[in-house]
């Protein structure tokens, strides 16, 4: 039995990757949940909004690199991120002006807005492919590791190595900062409170003199920042590909719905629940179990519940289970 090695393998292949992925999903789900809470529809264009923000950030990153500007050990993309956010904010504000506002003024039913957002999704999809193409783009630079596997093995004398990639640390730190700022904003500032009030009871918010167009515009700007940050962190951690971002819609929606649509705390919890489930269900546990069992009892199978190709099925299954037993999500959200 070698529990320490088992722990290292678990941290290395399950905990750390799932935590980073969970933070990315949480940021994505926060955007979805804010739109749902304030504008009251499920925004299917969210994945492509993330893709757009990331694409712009990548182009700016390449331009900076071309000009010889880097960010030391940190990825240059972090320098480019504010530009990506600003461009995305302009895009979503423009979309709101030219598309969503029309339906809002007619008090269109939420399902109509959902379908409209699918149209927006296709358009954004096209824009992203037009500006950056359909290929995989790797844009990570700077230091690769905070802790690398070999160094860890040599330092601890364990058989297993632990690798902690810089992008994983950056993801967790950036996500924590973004979430802290968001909650400070929602709970402490008057504008944030008026957003919460608007989400809680729109009629009453209007009667309290809160301007709906202002609340909506601020929501879009925050959503642009969250979506771009989520997309860039995901791209740094893995790579950027337009189609992958579209596929992220499912786990992101699953996270938002599992947590309770419209509830920011729920979105964060949901992000981690989905990420950990996905990683744990598709991970082959043989090595971990082998270290935990007495010698000679190593399992012969991989101990993998599902192969990684089916990872989206995990989100889907959790989504269905939660909707069956708790339609408003684990934390109280608006019911779907």
């Amino acid at each position, binding site marked *: 039995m070698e529990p320490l090695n088992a722990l290292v393998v678990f941290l290395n292949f399950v905990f750390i990757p799932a935590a980073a992925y969970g933070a990315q999903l949480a940021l994505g789900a926060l955007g979805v949940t804010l739109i749902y809470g304030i504008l009251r529809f499920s925004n299917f264009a969210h994945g492509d909004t993330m893709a757009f923000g990331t694409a712009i950030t990548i182009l700016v990153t390449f331009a900076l690199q071309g000009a010889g500007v880097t960010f030391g050990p940190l990825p240059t993309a972090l320098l480019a991120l504010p530009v990506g956010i600003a461009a995305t904010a302009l895009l979503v504000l423009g979309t709101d002006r030219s598309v969503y506002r029309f339906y809002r003024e007619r008090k269109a039913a939420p399902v109509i807005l959902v379908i409209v957002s699918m149209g927006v999704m296709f358009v954004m999809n096209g824009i992203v492919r037009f500006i950056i193409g359909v290929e995989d783009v790797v844009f990570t630079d700077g230091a690769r590791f905070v802790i690398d596997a070999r160094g860890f093995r040599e330092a601890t004398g364990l058989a297993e190595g632990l690798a902690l990639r810089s992008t994983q640390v950056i993801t967790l730190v950036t996500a924590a900062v973004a979430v802290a700022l968001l909650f400070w904003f929602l709970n402490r*500032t008057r*504008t944030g409170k008026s957003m*919460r*009030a608007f989400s809680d009871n729109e009629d*009453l918010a*209007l009667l309290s*003199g809160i301007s709906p167009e202002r609340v909506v515009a601020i929501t879009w700007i925050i959503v642009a920042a969250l979506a771009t940050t989520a997309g860039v962190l995901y791209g740094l951690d893995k790579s950027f590909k337009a189609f992958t971002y579209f596929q992220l819609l499912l786990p992101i929606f699953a996270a938002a719905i599992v947590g309770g649509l419209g509830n920011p705390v729920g979105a964060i919890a949901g992000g981690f629940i989905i990420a950990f489930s996905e990683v744990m269900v598709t991970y082959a546990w043989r090595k971990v179990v082998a270290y935990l069992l007495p010698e000679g009892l190593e399992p012969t199978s991989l101990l993998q519940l599902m192969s990684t190709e089916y990872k989206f099925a995990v989100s889907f299954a959790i989504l269905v289970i939660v909707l069956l037993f708790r339609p408003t999500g684990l934390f109280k959200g608006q019911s779907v």
Partner: protein
Amino acid sequence: MIEVHDLHKHFGGFRAVDGASLSIRPGTITGLIGPNGAGKTTLFNVIAGRLPPTSGRVTMGGEDITGLPPHELFHKGLLRTFQIAHEFSSMTVRENLMMVPPNQSGESIWNAWFARGRIRQEEARLARKADEVLEFLTIRHLADEKAGNLSGGQKKLLELGRTMMVDARIVFLDEVGAGVNRTLLNTIGDAIVRLNRERGYTFCVIEHDMDFIGRLCDPVIVMAEGKVLAEGPAESIMRNEAVIEAYLGRGLRNKGAA
């Protein structure tokens, strides 16, 4: 103060408000009564900008306010409450009141970050104001309660409190007494009278309790089937035959309006 000219609000073919004309004079507590389904709430909804009228005009102090959205009417001093009280359920009672006052420096994110001292002062001032309002309404002890946990009657008081956080010019109250016990109803009545006398609020009050209407309101407007049936002092309204018949449900089709 408020003039309503030949206002119509139709839902499909159904005429919820069917050519109503009325005026609310400044400084009055005007009562609005009528059987269920008469169109009172719908009239409020149109005046207060929640629903667009099918046709007709609403003016306030001579200015056309037809179809203005509620948040703009708020800034002109026109406020209303709902038949079923609304509240920000996840906020405390005090926070509910503090949501109301507009145009403070806390509005800007810049200030929220860089002028925190001033924001804090303003918040403190607002909290004091909210507490005064709660004191006035005799629900000071509920200040830190989540508004969602209040009883129906307490929510009605909170709604009234909302209108006291600013200097309203005219306040529309929809069924202030619905689901409210006698003591609470008297509290509400006293608050309305004091606001009217001390702060010059004009009120338009929908209420089914005739004692309440008789004690507070002059004049009283009666609506039935989307139209204004009668208007006058409370005593004469209660003796008006057409009004009695409307309430007894025989309708006014054969009788003709008073």
